[in-house]
């Protein structure tokens, strides 16, 4: 009996659990990347005990890869040396860690996966518990295989109706961020459900748990259903049987009901994710860079939307348009189906998969006074470069329309 997070935790604890309890649970996978692994190695060395289970450790190179400077290169070298020394089986560099974790089948319903990256909440899209932690706890989990969790209260977001053409999961999630605010979900599990979610394909579902981080949530969850199982069986090497864990007579702290059919395209405006406006209120604002990438919105279907809108056209001459597929698998499929050629012909710069521009590391850094419209999840001041630059968040379709005009543009006239 309980909310989805209580049901997931109860299976691991082997007994019913309730919000407020502190649990010490076994974790299934422990994720970290090139930015956060060095500190985990330091914690591991300081503890001075052996790794419990090498198979549970998954390391990624994505934040500054391939290395844009000597220090990043040294970071990578240090991690590779550690992987060799410890004989770790999973070192991946096929794209943004969260996308690759899902594609490679590490995330299954009911799994407990911790990551040294705040957007580890993403795994909730598969009915798994994913949460972000600091590197020290990652080093601790390498040694103990465990992590402590306070069972969180749950905010249920009940989404009904069908979205209008030109309105996507990103618009709905940006609207939710505006409603709840950037600390509206702090310490909470945010459970997304309702007929809108039930009918949504996996690539769109992922947006909600991914951005639950931006409202402070401990996790964002969508209960596994037939869509999840189909995705796991057809798109990943994960082996079943998979349990479709559901909330059972849940007690929610709060329920928010939204009819998505009333929504128009939304934008998270500089400088906070909860500074949300209907696109019409910022339409026409000049944009220097359009960035289509990240764990939020750079899946194959996102790139397909952009390519369809840019086909046979040219992006604005004074707007840099950067497309970074979330993973190499996505990149390859987009290439095989001719999407990359369409994007390049339209004047986009297509880069290798990774996180570089989103964290202001490389491949799309903003100058002072510049404004970007991106498909990212976060618009902190200075995140993409100069502290005097501005970041606006929107859907891939809005990004494509904006790429054509060089100004924030409603995608509905370009579909």
């Amino acid at each position: 009996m309980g909310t989805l997070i209580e049901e997931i935790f109860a299976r691991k604890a082997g007994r019913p659990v309730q919000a407020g309890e502190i649990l010490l649970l076994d974790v299934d996978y422990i994720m970290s990347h090139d930015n956060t692994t060095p500190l985990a190695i330091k914690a591991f060395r300081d503890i001075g005990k052996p790794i419990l289970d090498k198979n549970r450790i998954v390391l990624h190179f994505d934040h500054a890869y391939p290395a844009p400077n000597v220090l990043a290169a040294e970071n990578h070298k240090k991690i590779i040396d550690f992987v060799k020394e410890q004989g770790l089986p999973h070192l991946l560099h096929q794209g943004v860690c969260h996308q690759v974790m899902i594609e490679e089948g590490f995330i299954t319903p009911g799994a407990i996966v911790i990551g040294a990256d705040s957007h580890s909440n993403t795994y909730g899209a598969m009915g798994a518990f994913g949460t972000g932690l600091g590197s020290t706890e990652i080093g601790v989990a390498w040694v103990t295989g465990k992590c402590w969790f306070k069972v969180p209260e749950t905010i249920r977001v009940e989404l009904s109706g069908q979205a209008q053409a030109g309105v996507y999961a990103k618009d709905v999630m940006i609207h939710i961020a505006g409603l709840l605010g950037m600390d509206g979900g702090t310490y909470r599990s945010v459970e997304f459900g309702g007929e809108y979610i039930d009918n949504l394909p996996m690539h769109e579902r992922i947006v909600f748990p991914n951005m639950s981080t931006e409202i402070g949530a401990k996790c964002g969850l969508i209960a596994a259903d037939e869509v999840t199982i189909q995705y796991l069986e057809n798109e990943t090497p994960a082996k079943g049987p998979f349990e479709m864990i559901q909330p059972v007579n849940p007690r929610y702290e709060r329920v928010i009901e939204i009819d998505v059919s009333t929504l128009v395209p939304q934008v998270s405006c500089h400088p906070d994710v909860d500074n949300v406006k209907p696109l019409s209120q910022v339409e026409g604002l000049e944009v220097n860079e359009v960035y289509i990438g990240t764990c939020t919105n750079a899946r194959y279907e996102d790139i397909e939307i952009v390519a369809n809108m840019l086909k046979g056209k040219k992006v604005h001459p004074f707007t840099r348009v950067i497309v970074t597929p979330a993973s190499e698998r996505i990149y390859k499929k987009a290439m095989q189906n001719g999407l990359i050629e369409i994007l390049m012909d339209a004047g986009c710069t297509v880069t290798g998969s990774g996180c570089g521009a989103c964290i202001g590391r490389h491949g799309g850094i903003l100058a002072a006074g510049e404004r970007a419209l991106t498909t990212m999840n976060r618009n902190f001041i200075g995140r993409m470069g100069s502290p005097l630059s501005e970041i606006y968040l929107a859907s891939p379709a809005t990004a494509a329309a904006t790429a054509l005009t060089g100004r924030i543009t409603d995608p509905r006239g370009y579909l």
Partner: protein
Amino acid sequence: MAKAWTFGENMNTDEIIPGRYNITIDPLELAKNVFCEVKPEYAKTVQPGDVIVGGQNFGCGSSREHAPIAIKGSQAKCIIAPSFARIFFRNCINIGLPILECPAAVADITEGDDVDVDLASGQIFNRTNGHQYQASALPDFVLKIAEAGGIVNFLKTHDIQDLMT
């Protein structure tokens, strides 16, 4: 004299230390750039034992431990805020950087006040205006980690199960 340094609401990890400086894990190196964009004078003039007084949701954003490490490296004694972001809260405890939740103190303390903190009792004393505030108590297992000086030190001498007993 322990000076209070005040910061606004929703202070995020990029503002504590921008991503471009996270190429080192050396606390003293990180401390050179801590708060460099929101309060550049902090890193230049902070003294050991000074106290950070933040707004609600302090430390939101990235999971990067560089943020609390940079603050610890600056030798601030502790952070007082009405509330902390989830990952940042865990990170501070894990690395042994004391944090206190105390809305009353935050509402009353102004930048430059002389503030004394007794970490064990959670009592905060403002020597500038004579006011005293009581921070909320931390859960027992969190205190165990804090008393050991962080989770790494705790595990050197304990099993992880000891947290729960």
